[in-house]
């Protein structure tokens, strides 16, 4: 069994309770710095669980992973470049539909996603019934219900994170389809990207999607090769 440190990237929309989850995970063992090259605050912390040391990196709170804001670029680059062992997306269960937009984009990057389904109490008080098992099955990713404000579910979340990092829990993910007109263009782009040096660090399909989104940062990267 590998005793290597596990890297956990913590993602989530603003107001999803991400900071609370971060505090629950790391307690007092945190330090604050800056993301390289920019003056955006970067928080990191540590925790030990089942004999494993887990480094928790708090990503900026974002709604998506486009190149429109610095926060989104930081979050995205970290997932793509640093390839954390697990990405935990804190999702507000009382605002599920909007929050899942980020989760879907993380899954498109083929990252090892675990969904921390937070604020289950608020969702329940509004009469929402969420089929957690079905959600997990259809997204192909583990979903851990929690109430971070009352420190409920933290243990289960860590259990799942360690399971995913050790390969005991599989994240099969989704295969997003963008409609056949877009797919036809994606197929063409994917084919010519495959020979490009960029394809070594990014998946050709993801690059193709980003190119069609006319993503400023990815277009620049392609130009610089």
């Amino acid at each position, binding site marked *: 069994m590998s005793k290597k440190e596990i890297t956990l990237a913590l993602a989530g929309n603003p107001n999803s309770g991400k900071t609370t989850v971060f505090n629950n995970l790391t307690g007092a063992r945190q330090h604050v710095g800056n993301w390289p090259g920019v003056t955006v605050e970067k928080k990191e912390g540590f925790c030990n669980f089942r004999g494993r040391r887990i480094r928790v990196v708090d990503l900026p709170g974002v709604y998506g992973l486009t190149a429109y804001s610095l926060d989104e670029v930081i979050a995205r680059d970290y997932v793509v470049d640093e390839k954390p062992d697990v990405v935990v997306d804190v999702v507000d269960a009382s605002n*599920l539909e909007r929050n899942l937009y980020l989760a879907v984009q993380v899954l498109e990057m083929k990252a090892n996603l675990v969904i921390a389904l937070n604020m289950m109490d608020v969702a329940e008080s509004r009469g929402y019934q969420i*089929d957690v098992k079905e959600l997990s099955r259809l997204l192909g990713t583990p979903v851990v219900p929690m109430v971070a404000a009352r420190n409920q579910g933290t243990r289960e979340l860590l259990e799942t994170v360690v399971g995913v990092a050790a390969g005991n829990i599989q994240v099969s993910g989704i*295969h997003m389809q963008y409609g056949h007109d877009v797919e036809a*263009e994606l197929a063409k782009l994917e084919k*010519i990207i495959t020979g490009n040096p960029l394809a070594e660090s990014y998946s050709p399909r993801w690059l193709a999607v980003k190119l069609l989104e006319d993503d400023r940062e990815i277009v620049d990267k*392609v130009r610089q090769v």
Partner: protein
Amino acid sequence: MDSVEIIRLKDESLDHLRKVHGDDAETLIADARYGFISGLMKDVLKKPAIEKETATDRIDRLILHRWLGIPIFLAILYGVFQFTFVVSAPLIKWINAGLDWLAGQSSGISPAWLSSLVSDGIIGGVGAVLSFIPIIFLLYIALSILEDTGYLSRAAFVMDRLMHRIGLHGRSFVTLMLGFGCSVPAIMSSRTIENPQDRLVTILVTPLISCGAKLPVYALLAAAFFTAYQGLVVFSMYAMGIILAILLAWLFRKKLVPGESGHFVMELPPYRLPTVVTVLAHMWERGWAFLSRAGTLIFGAVVLIWFLNYFNVLEHMGRAIAPIFAPAGFGQWQSAIALVFGVLAKETVVGAFGTLFAGTETAGGFGSVIAIQLGWTPLVAFAFMTMILLYTPCVAALGTIKKETGSWKWTLFTVAYTLALGWVVATLIYQIGSLFL
């Protein structure tokens, strides 16, 4: 690959998508994600009824209704065929008048064989196919509207429950419905089905769906034999195609490729009002294949048919094959030849009739020439239409099946089972029908 080339291709793709959809690819991609998520929400989230409903919710409550969903789907499909037939009728008349005039002009050409080639072969054959262009383009317009408004995804969602019962997934139904246009892109769209067994079975049954190229054959025969009930007869072909595709899919899934079927989210994109440009662009994309085929493949086939006929070889060939189809009622050599050439492309059947019966004018138009020359009753015509619906897919579809399954075995299996199915169903219709009519 060169970065400059990638950027160039990207800009080209973006221009193309903007032209076709009037929207940036970015919007289309975001819509696909929202569609995925709202489909997911239908499966995992129950909200109390007091929440405010959006317009999409209200329309969905009717269209996705547990019991009304399938009847609504059938009614919409029926509406599509009524629309294509009613609107295309005068257009087809004009084109035919133009073709008659052309044929008249070319009868003066000498030598006589060249005049026959031009007026009987080319104008009679290719012209017969081209005269159905309005009907095909109108069908493609209707299909584009169904797809671009977001209804197609709803129909698949409605069918999802039924599809699970037969061991398939709603996405298979999307493939089948794209088959209304053409089997080739439909079979390719099966790539969205992740489970390999589900995908294989979907590919195998897609050719049973009535494609755009089969429509001219129905239209020709329906006009000749079922004047008052044309729309209904053609609709019955479409319905039979869907029903048999689903039945056979169930059988194949059970007997040939058993195993657990996949579970995915059925995407529910927001309803959209498609723009005229989008719909026309989609119509053109699909219709162009049909037009260019008429100028190449059908042209070649028709010239070959004319040539073999001119030298009296064709009838011998036809008579050798025809007895096979006698139990189904259409044991004439001309229809046997039409079926053989129909494997090149289904609309060649119309071209073959056009060439073979050119010059034998009657008051009732081209359709009634066939009725008189072949001595068919409406029952025989119906059995023949069933054969056209079900028998061996055209070469383009077979090529796609080979490419997508990567297997000659499954390709040949498709050839064999569709031929057998077409023969059996046509024979049953003719034999049982003969008892009552």
